[in-house]
């Protein structure tokens, strides 16, 4: 039975806490001893987003004594579909503040230790030192590798979860005899293979499911109960409502947790992932651009512009600028549709300006020298030109 060693003395529970946790206390698998272990435990939640929301709420409700929260982001409307620790009234506020308030409302006996900062190689080891279990609720590969490596170096278990569209994964990495994340992914996946939630979408309830699995695993480690997901990758298929698992073995040749590790200190993970990095930020530099203001001006002046929309059909249905739709991935094989407009001023747009920048780079090479990228895309158009245009 895997468990963690809590270095602290068993803290007593006051009468209010006994009442609060009575449904735990009457279970022999938890009891007073188990609840005291929960109160003594210090769990660090990396991220208070989709996974971090249900995780933090349930760990707080269960009576985990100290909850560290790492997040530097601000609540956005698009978060509310799944990040249930944040409410509509929190839009625009730092996520950390929002999360702290909700945790205090659920359980004022929980001590919240906030870290309103990006987790980096410079601060990770110091932050991790004050906690017993790390729960990875991040949404990007550089941070996942950083969390993993820091957990291996500090000897702390890494409760991992990830989500994409309708599927999720969960495991417990970096336990003493089990594999770490790098045993499964020695390197970041090839670029473009794993889109973010913003790019690929995610079923709102899915992080609820996976975040709760992570919370369950954290609690099992604290209590020393059940069989944790060490050496097991749990696969969640929400559409089929199936839970399956694959066995993972600790890799003796793993560069971080193997018998002869070659990575013995934290590295530059942005660079590590940027070498093949789908996380690399898309730059719009280097292609001709046009602002939404200029486009508006020129449309009002009834200039002969050709507008090309490189989003997907389902995005076009949400909102559009009456552009000609050719999704970015189809552009190479459909570029001939634009031949009659080669001499026209062409404005290319997408949702936020990233995909359209790639399209303009391609079109310029294909001889469309008058193609320009609409900076900020339909989001900027909604912000600055037409607030009635829905943002998504």
């Amino acid at each position, binding site marked *: 039975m895997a468990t963690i060693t809590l270095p602290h003395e068993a803290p007593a529970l006051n009468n209010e806490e006994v009442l609060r946790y009575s449904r735990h206390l009457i279970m022999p698998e938890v009891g007073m001893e188990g609840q005291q272990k929960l109160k003594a435990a210090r769990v660090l939640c990396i991220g208070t987003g989709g996974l971090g929301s249900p995780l933090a709420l349930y760990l707080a409700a269960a009576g985990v004594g100290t909850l560290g929260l790492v997040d530097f982001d601000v609540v956005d409307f698009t978060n509310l579909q799944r990040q249930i620790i944040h409410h509509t009234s929190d839009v625009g506020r730092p996520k950390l503040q929002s999360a702290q308030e909700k945790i205090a409302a659920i359980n004022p006996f929980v001590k919240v230790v906030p870290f309103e900062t990006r987790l980096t190689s410079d601060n990770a080891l110091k932050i991790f030192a004050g906690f017993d279990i790390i729960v990875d609720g991040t949404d990007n590969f550089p941070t996942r590798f950083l969390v993993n490596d820091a957990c291996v170096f500090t000897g702390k278990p890494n409760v991992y979860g990830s989500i994409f569209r309708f599927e999720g994964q969960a495991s417990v990495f970096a336990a003493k005899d089990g594999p770490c994340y790098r045993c*499964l*992914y*020695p390197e970041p*996946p*090839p670029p473009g*293979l*794993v889109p973010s939630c913003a790019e690929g979408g995610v079923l709102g309830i899915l992080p609820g499911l996976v975040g709760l699995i992570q919370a369950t695993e954290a609690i099992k480690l604290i209590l020393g109960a059940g069989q944790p997901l060490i050496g097991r*990758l749990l*696969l969640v298929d929400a559409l089929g409502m*199936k839970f*399956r698992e*694959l*066995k*993972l*073995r600790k*890799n*003796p*040749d793993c560069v971080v947790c193997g018998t*002869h590790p*070659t990575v013995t200190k934290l590295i530059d993970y942005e660079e590590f992932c940027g070498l093949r990095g789908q996380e690399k930020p898309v730059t719009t530099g280097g292609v001709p651009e046009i602002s939404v203001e200029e486009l508006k001006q020129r449309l009002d002046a009834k200039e002969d512009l050709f507008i090309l929309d490189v989003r997907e059909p389902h995005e076009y249905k949400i909102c559009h600028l009456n552009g000609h739709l050719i999704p970015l991935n189809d552009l190479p094989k459909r570029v001939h549709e634009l031949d009659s407009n080669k001499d026209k001023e062409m404005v290319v747009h997408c949702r936020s300006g990233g995909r359209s920048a790639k399209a303009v780079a391609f079109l310029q090479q294909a001889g469309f020298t008058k193609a320009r990228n609409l900076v900020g895309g339909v989001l900027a158009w909604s912000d600055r030109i037409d607030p009635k245009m829905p943002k998504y």
Partner: protein
Amino acid sequence: MKALALQSEGPRGSRPERPRPVSGKLVLRISQSDHDLIRREAERSYPHECCGILVGSASGERRAVSLVVPCDNTRSDAPERRYSIDPRQIIDAMKLGRSRGENIVGFYHSHPDHPARYSATDLAEAHWFDCSYVIVGVEQGRAGPTQSFLLAGSEDSKRFEPEEIQIRPANAPNAI
């Protein structure tokens, strides 16, 4: 020794055989630790057959294993002589492989108290062309020779071709 009845993606299944290049040596590269893992699984499962999936990359005559995924033998009726892997685990392993930019390159199973040589049933039940089938012989609980065979041909005339197992040094890149 029942193998799997699930087709993979890509150009597998019934199709004309691809001509084998002249140099012709079939190689399966695997790390010492993965090789040892398969043999440990074989010993651990004795007297039943163990089985699992090999994930990695392939090019021409060469396959390289980067991840071994042990699976449960679902043949509870005759696990000493037969094995079967849940097709859903195959799909999961394929997805996992894809998330690593790789694919399924083969399978392994063990022969308790039987040579590390494919049987007629092994061949009849194998359908993953251009994949490696690794067999570990286990005598009285101890792993013996490990052999690998590439499934070649087509469903109408298939065969196993012997494949050399090359152990990749621990710190060597996992290139094919």
